[in-house]
C-alpha cells in the first residue's frame, strides 16, 4: 500500500513495544458483536494507474462545459481562471495545512485570510467581512439568523427573485429553528414590491441582486424602508463579478451582504466546493458567524495575524454560539484572493465590463430570433428569455447538438405553467462570438 509506511516488521515490533500480542488486543473495547474479522464487500486496493483509468471513464461520460458552447449561470458561472491560481493553491503549504490554530506557523494562511476579508469588504462596499462560509447559499441562511439575533425579531421577508435553492435552505432553517421565512412569488418581469411586505416584526428583507431572472434593481428605496422599520437589508449576490460593474450593495444601504464567490478563482465543480462571502457593518461584528482573521503584534512588536473574536464561536460558546459552523472554505477563499489580486482594480472592473458587453451582444442576437423575447431591461451577464416552447425540451434538444443553452426556470421552480417557457441565459468572457452564433442558429431551427 503506497500510502502506508509501516512494514510488517514495524508492526510486529511496535506491538511488542506496546506489550500486546496483536491488533485485536488494541480493539478489545469494541463489543464482540460488532467486531468484524473479514473484509467488507468492496474491491481490493488499486494502483494509481487503475484508479485514474476508472475515474477517467466516469468523467468522460459528462459533457465538460468548456468543451461546448455553454451559457449556464443561476448561481454558478464559468469564468477563466489564470493558471497561476491553481498552481499556487496546490502548494503543499496551503493545500495540506489546517485551520491556523497555531498562528506562529500559520502566518501565510492568516495573512491571506486578512487580505480576503479586505477584498470582500472593498468589493461589497461593506465595513467588515469574515474569513468565508461554505458557499453563498449557506451564507444566506446564516445572514438571516444573524439578522434575527441583531434585531431580536423572527420574521424574514424573502424576495421572490431569490435563487430557489437559497430560498429552500432559509425555509429549512426557519422551519426547524423556529423563525418565519415569508417567500415572495417569483416575478420574471422583475417588478416585485418588497417594501410593502415589511412590518414592525420584520427582522430582515433578503433580496438578490441581480435577481434569479437577472434583473438589477436600485436597492436604496428598499434600504430606506428597512431602516424605518428597524429591519436589516440582506443583499445576496450569486455572481460576484457583477460587483465590478455595479454600485456595491454597501453603497445602497445593505446591512449584510452575502455572495457566492465561486466566479473568482474557482471552477464549476458540479456545484461545489464553492466559497461564501459574508460582509456586514462594524456595529454587527459580534453577531457575525464564522472565523475572523485579525491583526496584532508578536512578542517582538512585529505585525502579525491571528484568529480573533472566537468567543462568538462554537468551540468556546458551545450551544450559545452565533453559528454551528467550524470549517470554512479556506482553500477556495485562497483561490478567490489570488485571482482577485491578479485582476486588481483594472482587471476586476474590466472583466465585469467585458461580461456585461458580451451578455448585451448575446441578448441582442437572441432577441432577433423569431418567437424569442428578452424579458430584462437591465441585467449584468445573465438574463431571461421567453421561448415559444417549454424551455426544458429546448435545452434537451440543444444538449443533443452539444450546446448547453441555458437553464430552464422550470429546473429550479417546477410545476408552474407560466414559467415553463422561460430560459436563463448567461454570457461570460469565456463565450466567443461563434459560441453565440451556434446557440442562435440552433435555437432558430428548434423553436421554429
Amino acid at each position, binding site marked *: 500500500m503506497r*500510502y502506508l509506511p509501516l512494514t510488517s516488521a514495524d508492526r510486529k515490533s*511496535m506491538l511488542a513495544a*506496546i506489550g500486546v500480542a496483536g*491488533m485485536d488486543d*488494541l480493539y*478489545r473495547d*469494541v463489543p464482540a458483536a460488532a467486531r*468484524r474479522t473479514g*473484509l467488507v464487500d*468492496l474491491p*481490493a486496493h488499486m494502483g*494509481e494507474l487503475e*484508479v485514474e483509468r476508472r475515474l477517467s471513464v*466516469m468523467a468522460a461520460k*459528462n459533457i465538460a462545459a468548456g*468543451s461546448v458552447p455553454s451559457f449556464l449561470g*443561476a*448561481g*454558478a458561472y464559468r469564468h477563466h481562471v489564470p493558471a*497561476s491560481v491553481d498552481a*499556487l493553491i496546490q502548494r*503543499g503549504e496551503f493545500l495540506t495545512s489546517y*485551520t491556523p490554530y*497555531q498562528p506562529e506557523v*500559520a*502566518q501565510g494562511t492568516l495573512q*491571506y485570510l*486578512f487580505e480576503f*476579508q479586505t477584498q470582500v469588504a*472593498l468589493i461589497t462596499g461593506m465595513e467588515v*467581512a469574515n*474569513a468565508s462560509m461554505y458557499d453563498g447559499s449557506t451564507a444566506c441562511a446564516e445572514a438571516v439568523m444573524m439578522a434575527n439575533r441583531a434585531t431580536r425579531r423572527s420574521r424574514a421577508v424573502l424576495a421572490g427573485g431569490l435563487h430557489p*435553492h437559497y430560498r429552500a*435552505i432559509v425555509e429549512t432553517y426557519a*422551519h426547524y*429553528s*423556529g423563525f418565519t421565512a415569508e417567500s415572495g412569488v417569483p416575478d420574471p418581469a422583475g417588478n416585485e414590491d418588497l417594501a410593502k411586505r415589511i412590518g414592525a416584526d420584520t427582522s430582515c428583507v433578503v433580496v438578490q441582486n441581480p435577481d434569479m431572472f437577472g434583473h*438589477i434593481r436600485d436597492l436604496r428605496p428598499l434600504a430606506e424602508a428597512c431602516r424605518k422599520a428597524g429591519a436589516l437589508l440582506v443583499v445576496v449576490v450569486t455572481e460576484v463579478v457583477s*460587483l465590478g460593474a*455595479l454600485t456595491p450593495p454597501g453603497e445602497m444601504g445593505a446591512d449584510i451582504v452575502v455572495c457566492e464567490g465561486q466566479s473568482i478563482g474557482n471552477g464549476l*465543480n458540479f456545484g*461545489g466546493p464553492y*466559497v461564501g462571502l459574508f460582509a456586514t457593518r462594524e456595529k454587527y461584528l459580534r453577531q457575525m458567524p464564522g472565523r475572523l482573521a485579525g*491583526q*496584532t*503584534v508578536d512578542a*517582538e512588536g512585529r505585525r502579525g495575524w491571528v484568529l480573533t473574536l472566537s468567543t462568538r464561536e462554537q468551540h468556546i460558546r*458551545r450551544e450559545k*454560539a452565533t*453559528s*454551528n459552523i*467550524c470549517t470554512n472554505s*479556506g482553500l477556495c477563499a485562497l483561490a478567490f*484572493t489570488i485571482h*482577485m*489580486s491578479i485582476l486588481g482594480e483594472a482587471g476586476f472592473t*474590466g472583466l465585469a465590463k467585458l461580461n456585461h*458587453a458580451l451578455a448585451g451582444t448575446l441578448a441582442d442576437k437572441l432577441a432577433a430570433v423569431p418567437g424569442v423575447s428578452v424579458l430584462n431591461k437591465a441585467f449584468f451577464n445573465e438574463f431571461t428569455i421567453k421561448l415559444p416552447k417549454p424551455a426544458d425540451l429546448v435545452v*434537451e434538444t440543444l444538449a443533443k447538438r452539444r450546446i448547453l443553452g441555458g437553464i430552464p426556470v422550470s*429546473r429550479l421552480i417546477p410545476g408552474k405553467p407560466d414559467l415553463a417557457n422561460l430560459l436563463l441565459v448567461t454570457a461570460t468572457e469565456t463565450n466567443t462570438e461563434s459560441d453565440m452564433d451556434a446557440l442562435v442558429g440552433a435555437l432558430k431551427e428548434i423553436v421554429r
Partner: protein
Amino acid sequence: MSEWSKAIGGFTGGKGAVETTSGNRGLQIEEPLIFEQGQDGRCGVDLPALPKSAERLGGLARKGAIGLPGLSEPQVVRHYTRLSQKNYAIDAGLYPLGSCTMKHNPRLNEKMARLPGFGDVHPLQPVSTVQGALELIDTLAHWLKIMTGMPAVAMSPAAGAHGELCGMLCIRAAHIARKQDHRRRVLVPESAHGTNPATAAVCGYTVDSIPADAEGRVDLAAFKAKLGPDVAAIMLTNPNTCGLFERDIIEIAKAIHGAGGYFYCDGANFNAIVGRVRPGDLGIDCMHINLHKTFSTPHGGGGPGAGPVVLSAALAPFAPVPWVVHGKDGYAVAEQSGAGNEAFGRLKAFHGQMGMFVRALAYMMSHGADGLRQVAEDAVLNANYLMARLKDDLTPAFPGPTMHEALFDDRFLKDTGVTTLDFAKALIDEGYHPMTMYFPLVVHGALLIEPTETESRESLDQFIEVCSALARRAKTANDAQAWFHDAPRYTPRRRLDETAAARKPVLRWKPEVPAKAAE
C-alpha cells in the same frame, strides 16, 4: 516590544536572531500585504477589447474606485509563494493535531478532481450530460454505505458541522412525523466537540450534558438517569474525543431507542475503526463522515470539507434533497422537497461538495477494502505506540489501549511553571506542528496527539524523542519556565498577542492606516 526592536522599527529578528538589514532571515522573508504593493497601471491579466454593446445596467453602474491594488502576475506569484512559506503543512512534517486526522493527501486525488469531466461541469446541466458525475456520487454513496453498514446516505452537507445539522434535522423531522416533537432535549457528553451542542441549538433543541466516568467514557448510569419522554436524541462521538472506544455503545443505543430517542453518532473519528467496525452494527441512527479526515480530502488551511451523513432505515425517508435516483434512462436527481417525498428540506445549493467526492472516492479506491482496514489498524497502532513510549515522560489521561489518538493531561508539568501552551510552542521550535491543546475539556491541560497511519515508524520515533526531551527539560532545567515561555523563537513570528487582537479588532486593511500604526 523591546527597546532594541523599537529602535530599528520593529521590523527585524527576535532576541538572539541574526540581525539583517532587511528583516529577512534567509528563507524567511518579510512580506507586506498585497494592498501595500499595488501600482496604478499594473494588471495581472490581459483582457480582449470590449465588443460594442449598449450598457444596460439600469443606471446602477459603479462609480468611483474600489481600492484594489494593481499587480503584475510575477508579483502576485511571488507574494503568495512567500506567504505559503510561513505555513506548516503535512507535506512538510508530522501534524499531530488530535481529532483532525491530518493524514497524507495523495496528489492523484487532486488530479482526478481536475478532470474536465468533473471539475468543469455545471451543476444545472441537463442530467443527460452529467451521467458520469451522478455515477461518481452514487458510487461514493455505495462505498460509504458498505463501510458503515448503513442503508442510506445524504451527500450534500458541506462539512462536519453541516453534516451534524443534517443528521439532527433528520431526527427532528422523524419525531415530527411520529408526533413526538415535544421531545426537545438532546444529551451530549461533556467531552463532545463544540459543534455538537451548537448544532443541537440550531435545530431548536436544548442541550443536557452527560458526565464522563473515571475512564473517559460516558457514565452509563448518569446517562440512563437522564432519559425521559422529552429526550430527542443522544449525540455521541465514537471513538470519543478522548480517543477511546465507547465500550457500552450497544447498550447506550438500546437505552436511547427504548426511551423513544435516536442515536446521533459523530463520525469525526471514523478513521480509527474504518473496515474494523461498521457503525451500523452498533445501533446508531445516523453518523456524519468528515471526508476531509477519514478519506483524506485536503484540509486546505481550513476547508473546504464535506460531511455526508449515513442514515438508518428509520431516518432515511427524511434525508434532504438532492439525491441521486436510478431512473429508466440512467441516473436522475431528486431536487424538490415535498414533491412526493418526506425530505426535511434542503441544506445546500446544488449537489454537495463534488470536488471532495472525487478526491474521497479516488482515495477509497486506492486503498480498497483491504487497505482501508489497514488504515484504521495502522492509525491505532501508531497512536498506541506513541502512548506506550511517552507514558513515562508525559502523563496519559486514561489507561489504554487507545484508538487513533493519544490523550495526555498536564500532570507531568505540575510545579514546573510550564503550561500545555508553552510545551506546544516549544514543539514548534523543534519543527513540529503541536498537538491539539486544551481539548477535550474533560481533561486538565489536555494534549491530544493523533499521528495518523501515514507516519512512518522513524518519524514517530523522532517525534517521541523530542517530546520526551522537552518533558524532561520542563521537569529538570532551572530556567524551564522562562525558556518554555519564550518559545517559539525560530518562527516567522514569535507569540502573537491574541488579547490585543480581540480588544481592538483590526479585521481589514485600510489605506489611511499605515503599517507602522500596528504597534
